């Protein structure tokens, strides 16, 4: 539930608020459960942090807020706090008998939205719903802030905060902006933890987002935190809050993508319906094959692409290909729904991203004469792809595991999916795979189209090779990706599924093969991959 609350709870909010309580002390667990139930909340208790994380991961949208003790034997409460913040983006309240300022500060630094001292009174628990509410509002505002119109559309559609949500209805940009500024200020006062410099909504440009993603990748998704990202980004005027909210959105975006992917069951050429990486069939195959040949080239590109993938701003040069790669593989599992992708991506892409992406796509088309129009080509069916012998061999997709695609391992299907060949599709795919940063990065929706990125990357590469603009290429690639992306990241899966498409294989120019392979080489940075992995799969 990204915006608002489930309708069932909307009427009597905050009644029915789903709280997860984590505390190793059985006595406190019992008391807190009773207290929360008295507040008409829906309570789940957990004696171990590990169990709590598992629960949260299993039911991604199953809880609204987490209350956790700081001192737990199996895991430090702050670590749990970070995990929850990163993976689920839920508000977390910390508890402890220790009220030392330093501890409380640590809690806030790690992202706790509140810090309660034991013994806890029931009245303190009664108001925890405000943290959930506040977060929703901020999310909506953030989304709104970035793309404004699209954001509003979405928030309007999704938000149940009709009371406060009036701001989202039928407003033009100006009024929205005004309100945003107002709310922004209001929020600052309200939350009390905003720096005074944060007066204006930050516009996350492509470059900025690229930096963001780069930083996230460098840090490692599982260790990422706004402060760390901010430090790495080295953007003087950016505040921690800016990064924090951006990170939130990014995570939201990723989880949304995953949900979308999960919904798309049909994957074109993929043999396995399983969406997870486990099924290297489509995408992996392609990627690996591509990678095999040119590790070096790919490697160079990879880092870049990776970064961009993570970032909201697709970096044309960057890693988008990496990311998408990773994602594609991961999500592909074996599902590549090209058709779905087409619609999916655009629908899904965070408002801003959509805009960005479109542009490059257009260019691509122009520049890349060979590429068939994306949409039509979009249906790169898997059946068309043929395994490319050279490609398959050494897939080194670095999907998840680490340096080279472990999953992807040269699988036949991988080759098949290698889109190199088909008329233009293949090329596109390849290109998308390649860490052609320019095309892809621009294409990338904020964290959304991972696969798209990959596609773009490839496209970019190819484009480079053919000296064409990336945009059109990327577009094609993205389109090709289709569902795959949708499923996981909203990136086109086309590449993956295409391995089965002989036509893909057939038409790819030789030189592309080379580039492609090289690009593939470095497709997925383990780090990057893990980032997505984390976000989506909660490793």
């Amino acid at each position, binding site marked *: 539930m990204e915006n608002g609350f489930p309708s069932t709870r909307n009427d009597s909010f905050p009644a029915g608020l789903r709280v997860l309580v984590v505390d*190793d*002390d*059985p*006595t*406190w667990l*019992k*008391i807190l459960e*009773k*207290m929360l139930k*008295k507040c008409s909340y829906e309570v789940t208790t957990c004696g171990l942090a590990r169990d709590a994380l598992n629960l949260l991961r299993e039911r991604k949208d199953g809880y609204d807020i987490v209350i956790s*003790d700081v*001192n737990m034997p199996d895991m430090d409460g702050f670590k749990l706090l970070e995990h929850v913040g990163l993976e689920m983006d839920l508000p977390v309240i910390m508890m*402890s*008998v*220790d009220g030392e300022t330093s501890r409380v500060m640590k809690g806030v630094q790690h992202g706790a939205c509140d810090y309660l001292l*034991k*013994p806890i*009174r*029931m009245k303190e628990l009664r108001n925890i719903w405000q943290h959930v509410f506040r977060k929703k509002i901020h999310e909506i505002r953030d989304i709104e802030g970035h793309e404004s119109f699209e954001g509003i559309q979405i928030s309007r559609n999704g938000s149940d905060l009709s009371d406060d949500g009036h701001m989202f209805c039928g407003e033009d940009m100006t009024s929205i902006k005004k309100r945003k500024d107002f709310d922004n200020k209001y929020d600052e006062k309200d939350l009390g933890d905003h720096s005074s410099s944060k007066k204006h909504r930050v516009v996350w440009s492509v470059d900025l987002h690229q930096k963001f993603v780069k930083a996230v990748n460098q840090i490692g998704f599982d260790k990422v935190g706004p402060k760390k990202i901010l430090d790495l980004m080295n953007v003087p005027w950016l505040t921690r809050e800016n990064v924090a909210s951006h990170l939130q959105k990014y995570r939201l975006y990723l989880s949304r993508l995953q949900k979308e992917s999960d919904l798309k069951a049909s994957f074109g050429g993929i043999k396995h319906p399983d969406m997870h990486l486990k099924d290297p069939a489509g995408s992996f195959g392609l990627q690996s094959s591509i990678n095999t040949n040119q590790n070096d080239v790919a490697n160079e590109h990879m880092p870049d692409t990776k970064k961009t993938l993570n970032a909201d701003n697709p970096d044309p040069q960057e890693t988008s290909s990496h990311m998408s790669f990773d994602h594609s593989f991961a999500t592909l599992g074996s599902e590549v729904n090209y058709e779905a992708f087409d619609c999916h991506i655009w629908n899904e892409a965070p408002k801003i991203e959509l805009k960005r992406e479109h542009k490059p796509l257009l260019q691509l088309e122009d520049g890349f004469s060979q590429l068939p129009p994306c949409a039509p080509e979009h249906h790169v069916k898997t059946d068309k792809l043929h395994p490319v012998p050279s490609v398959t061999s050494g897939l080194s997709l670095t999907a998840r595991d680490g340096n080279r695609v472990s999953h992807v391992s040269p699988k036949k299907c991988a080759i098949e999916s290698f889109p190199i060949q088909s008329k233009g599709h293949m090329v596109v795919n390849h290109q998308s795979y390649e860490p052609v940063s320019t095309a892809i990065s621009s294409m990338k929706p904020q964290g959304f189209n991972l696969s798209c990125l990959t596609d773009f990357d490839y496209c970019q590469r190819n484009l480079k090779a053919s000296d064409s603009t990336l945009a059109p290429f990327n577009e094609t690639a993205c389109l090709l990706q289709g569902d795959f992306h949708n499923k996981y990241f909203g990136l086109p899966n086309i590449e993956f599924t295409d391995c089965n498409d002989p036509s893909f294989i057939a038409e790819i120019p030789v030189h592309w093969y080379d580039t492609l392979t090289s690009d593939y080489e470095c497709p997925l940075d383990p780090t990057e991959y893990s980032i997505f992995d984390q976000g989506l799969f909660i490793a």
Partner: protein
Amino acid sequence: MDKNHLQRQLEMKRSLLDQGYLDEQFIQLEELEDGDNPNFVEETVTTFYANSARLLQNIEQALGSRPIDFTALDNCMHQFKSSSTSIGATRVKKECTLFMEYCEAANAEGCIRTFRQVKQEHASLKTKLENYFKLARQGGTSAGGHAGRS
């Protein structure tokens, strides 16, 4: 409901509060009692004593090791102290705080001495609460004064 019993029960509780054995938290627990959990307070106290015995064991072990790891000792006591606050065991909590100060000062003797106090208060409160609940049962009410114990 035996009025006399109820009266005595209330008096006993008052006494425990006044003497600092229990604090506001205990009252909170009683207020949580309702139809769904008529014996909530007693159940909670039982859970506390079952768990705290284990925590005391941990502290005992940490105190027994040579050399003493004061950080680990502090952590153990932190757990125990946190648990004590759950039922409002004020005196126990005070001794815990003192203990942790000795830990920070790496004063082994102070820790050992204070630990004895902790255990004493812990046991003393247990007896008093047992009497309290017994009285409540006899009076036909729960610890929180609810009638009709289940």
